[in-house]
């Protein structure tokens, strides 16, 4: 269980909570999360996890940050320091202390920090005529990873949704995020700290979940095949691709393709897998992949046949087979209303133009081959 400490200055409160590193949150000890999370970043020696509570969600100069939670591994513990602004007039004191605290770190981890928390803090510093450059420290926004990994599976990627569906964390008593601004404004008028006590707990829970989510994403890219939670495999593949872990990425793509019915995602995924197979010269696997797509009937026929034509022509050096595929692709295009363009003659449809061009070239190529065969014979 965490231990707590409070300190007060005139205008802001400082609270500390500590958890032992073997404390388990979301099925993972905090220490493990802090270590394995680094696989996805950020680079830097001293990392802090940061989350803010504000008077509004719209951003802009009129939104105040009244609570800043900073978590870090210190002396064998996970330590959360919370800066709380007791009145709006005390902002400058709090920000000064906060800037001092932040100087201990050279890397930050947030959830939606690049669009919300960090620009907002930057604005607050500017308005108090304090200079603190957030762009100098490394920053990882775990939300950008979460969007890739879970958006399509869960239909969203809010922290609340991720806690429920991925981290499986239950908040027994919690205040809804959207209520926080008005609770604070109410506190400003009444001075009743009791009423906003749940906000501190909310912020602490957010930070622990941020750490766990960071750890989980780190674990997923480190051991993708051991992943037990629901995940968008295609997204994970792209993430691994970006880290140049191509073989692991290819495995993810294969898993993703088992039941992917969304044409655009399937197309992206198949293309990415095909790129990998081509690079590693697995030509037969590549042929199998595109042949399999024909059976699937998710991607447009002409697209698959065009890729097959390319494959037959350049990898397998069989112009006749390539020509057959191209003609079949053109036939498929005629039978379908590709983008509705066949309705108006189709003369300017770039796909058709491209295919006709390929067919003509292949026809010439085949003729040359026959001629040269003929002359040999």
């Amino acid at each position, binding site marked *: 269980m965490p231990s707590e400490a409070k300190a007060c200055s005139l205008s802001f409160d400082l609270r500390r909570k500590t958890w032992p590193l073997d404390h388990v949150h979301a099925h993972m000890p905090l220490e493990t999360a802090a270590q394995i999370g680094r696989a996805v970043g950020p680079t830097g020696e001293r990392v802090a996890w940061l989350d803010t509570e504000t008077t509004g969600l719209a951003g802009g100069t009129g939104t105040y940050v009244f609570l800043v939670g900073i978590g870090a591994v210190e002396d064998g513990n996970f330590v959360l320091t919370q800066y709380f602004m007791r009145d709006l007039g005390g902002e400058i004191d709090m920000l000064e202390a906060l800037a001092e605290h932040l100087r201990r770190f050279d890397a930050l981890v947030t959830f939606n920090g690049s669009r919300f928390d960090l620009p907002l803090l930057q604005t607050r510093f500017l308005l108090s005529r304090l200079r603190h450059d957030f762009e100098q420290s490394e920053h990882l926004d775990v939300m950008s990873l979460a969007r890739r990994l879970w958006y399509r599976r869960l239909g969203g990627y809010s922290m609340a949704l991720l806690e429920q569906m991925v981290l499986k964390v239950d908040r027994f008593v919690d205040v809804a995020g959207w209520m926080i601004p008005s609770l604070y*404004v109410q506190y400003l008028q009444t001075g009743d700290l009791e009423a906003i006590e749940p906000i501190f707990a909310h912020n602490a829970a957010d930070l622990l979940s941020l750490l766990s989510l960071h750890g989980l994403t780190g674990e997923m890219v480190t051991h993708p095949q051991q992943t037990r939670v629901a995940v968008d495999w295609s997204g994970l593949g792209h993430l691994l691709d970006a880290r140049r872990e191509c073989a692991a990425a290819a495995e993810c793509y294969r898993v993703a393709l088992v039941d992917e019915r969304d044409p655009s995602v399937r197309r992206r995924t198949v293309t990415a897998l095909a790129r990998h197979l081509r690079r590693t010269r697995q030509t037969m696997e590549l042929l199998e992949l595109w042949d399999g797509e024909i059976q699937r009937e998710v991607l447009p026929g002409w697209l698959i046949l065009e890729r097959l034509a390319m494959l037959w022509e350049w990898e397998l050096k069989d112009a006749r087979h390539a020509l057959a595929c191209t003609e079949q692709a053109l036939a498929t295009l005629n039978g379908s209303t590709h983008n509705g363009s066949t309705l108006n003659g189709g003369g300017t449809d770039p796909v058709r133009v491209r295919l006709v061009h390929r067919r003509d070239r292949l026809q010439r190529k085949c003729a040359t081959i026959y001629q040269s065969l003929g002359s040999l014979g």
Partner: protein
Amino acid sequence: MTLRQLLDRLSSDPRRASKIAFWREIPPRPARFVEFPYSLDQNLVSALRRRGIEQLYSHQGEAFEAVRSGRHITVVTPTASGKTLCYNLPVLDRILREPGARALYLFPTKALSADQVDELQGLIKLLNADIKTFTYDGDTPASARRAIRAAGHVVVTNPDMLHTAILPHHTKWLRLFENLRYVIIDELHQYRGVFGSHVGNVIRRLRRICRFYGSDPQFICTSATIGNPKEHADRLVGDPVTLIDQTGAPSGEKVIAFINPPVVNRELGIRRDTLMEVRDLAGDLIHDSIPTIVFGRSRLTAELLTTYMKDLAKEYGHDPATIQGYRAGYLPSERRAIERGLREGTIQAVASTNALELGIDIGQLGAAILAGYPGSIASTWQQMGRAGRTTDLSAAFLVATSDPLDQYIVRHPEYFFDHSPEHALINPDNLLVLTSHLKCAAFELPLGVNEPYGATGVNDIMRALAEQKIVHGDGARWHYVAERFPAEDVSLRSASTENVVIIDQTNHARPDVVGEVDLNSAPGFVHEDAIYIHLGQQFHVERLDWEQRRAYVKRVNVDYYTQAEIAVGINVINEDGSAPDTLPRAHGEVVVSYRPTIFKKLKLFTQENVGWGKIHLPEGTYHTTAAWWIVNPAVIAGPSLPWPNDRLQGALAALSYALVNIAPAYLMCDRRDLGRVYEIRSPHTARPTIYVYEVLPGGVGLAERMFRLHDELMRAAIELIEHCGCEQGCPSCVGPVLEVGNTGKADALQILRSARLHTVM
């Protein structure tokens, strides 16, 4: 035929000449030049020389010197007098000497800013200097915004963007605000009324943010001719501004003619339809390929004139595509294409609303025809100024309608030529407007309890906002604490930010957005079964989804158009001032309720009534201000008995008609900015009362000004009615006999004469 020959024929042919109510030839004016100021950057001087500019017009030189000595200025000179150089010179000169310096250009419309940026960039190219100009508006891609914030020397935008996007995020614009040296406000006269009152507050907020960053920019404004350019600029900028109003630019010879259509029914005072008269005149000009602009007073007129003129072009064997319409509601791309066509000469004539009155560059036109008096002297000069930007001969025609104001103007040309143009009125301290902007100001930067904002102390308002939990006071400052982003709730242009989108469903598979109409005008234009005209094409409104703000239309080709009637009621909330007299009057706050009731179908060309229908739309209400006059029982008592109700009704209709039609001549406003209501027994005054109210929610002071201009207004109304040739009333004085009855005209005059008028001067 050349324009000169055409004008000669017009004034010599007896049939045509009889319609000319007034004819004036304005001689050409030579240029007045001054040498380049010696302190002007040499690089800039040689760039100007490369452009063929060897000297400056006197007003350009004057502007440069005034800015150099640190003053705010307002330049008031005619169209095409080289106004833009008045601000581009000081700005570029400063940036060349101080590369960190920044300037902010504000234009009222996007079209204008596109024009001016082109011109500025042309000059910068010649300078071969690293000066970056960027346009920041709703179309600016997010990816480009960052660069603009950091690197733009000149940021071109509009007050709306400044209000919603720049000021609330001023920390992102640190570089701009720290180094802001000049703020350019082009077309200052556009910022009047509610819009001007809002913009005055946006400028207060801008100057406040500049102070925070330690800058104090100079304001360089330009304006078309208005009655009070200095006073208006002083109020808008919030500091004394130096006026430069002597133009050094030359202008060609110009003919101004007032045309009054002949009376076709003397008894009813009916004149030949203005649009027919305009059509004839435009026909001559189109026939002889003289570039022409025709101004209609409403969207409908502009569209009808477009249709007529396209037909004329066909008749003369010209391509009808050389004739175009132009008005708000066209898509931006359509508008840009039309402007380009006018500049390049591929479009020969355009029928427009006052949307083209602004300084949008449409090149040099030979003739302007105004279909009806635009409502103010200033607008008339601007519209007439659209013809004759060269040194060549040009002509401007004002074709009168039967409206009282039009008839008054054509009969009193001296009113038009000698009277100073109307005053631009703004009231930045209007409580509603002020309160909205105080929220925005507090959002941008906490407001100190003793911080000056505008002229008045604002702590009372802030305390009220604190009660609503919108701000929180910590004793020293007011902090914004509401969650909503305040600027989004405040539209500068009107009370409502909403539009109704018009969707063409002619092709069911591919519905297409053809335009939009603001929420206030929507009930009158796109009610179900209305004929909406866009680019000369008629559309039938199939369905109006009021909740979703969508009107679904289908293309049709019918021989009629529609006109809606709106029932209006009025309730007095507070009387702000009153004057007892034989014709007692008052002004104050009112609530206006309005409900569209029916629409009429009027035949094209003949305006014959061919049908009607009901409009089913909810009633709307809004707060505004009004002036009202109470008819004394002694005045309306006959020798034995008081007037019966229907006679009284007619008299009130006649009187209010005359007043509401003559008033715009004395207020810088449009006829449509005022509405009238009359009651034979008003619940508020318990007497027969006529109300003239401001159509714009909140009002901008028109009502109060009417109250104060009482004597002048009454005198003008008496003159209007006395001098009208009709017998018992007509649309040119008190309204048609059908509406005012046989006695309306005489009774209105009797009421007016009962007012004790004080002689002026």
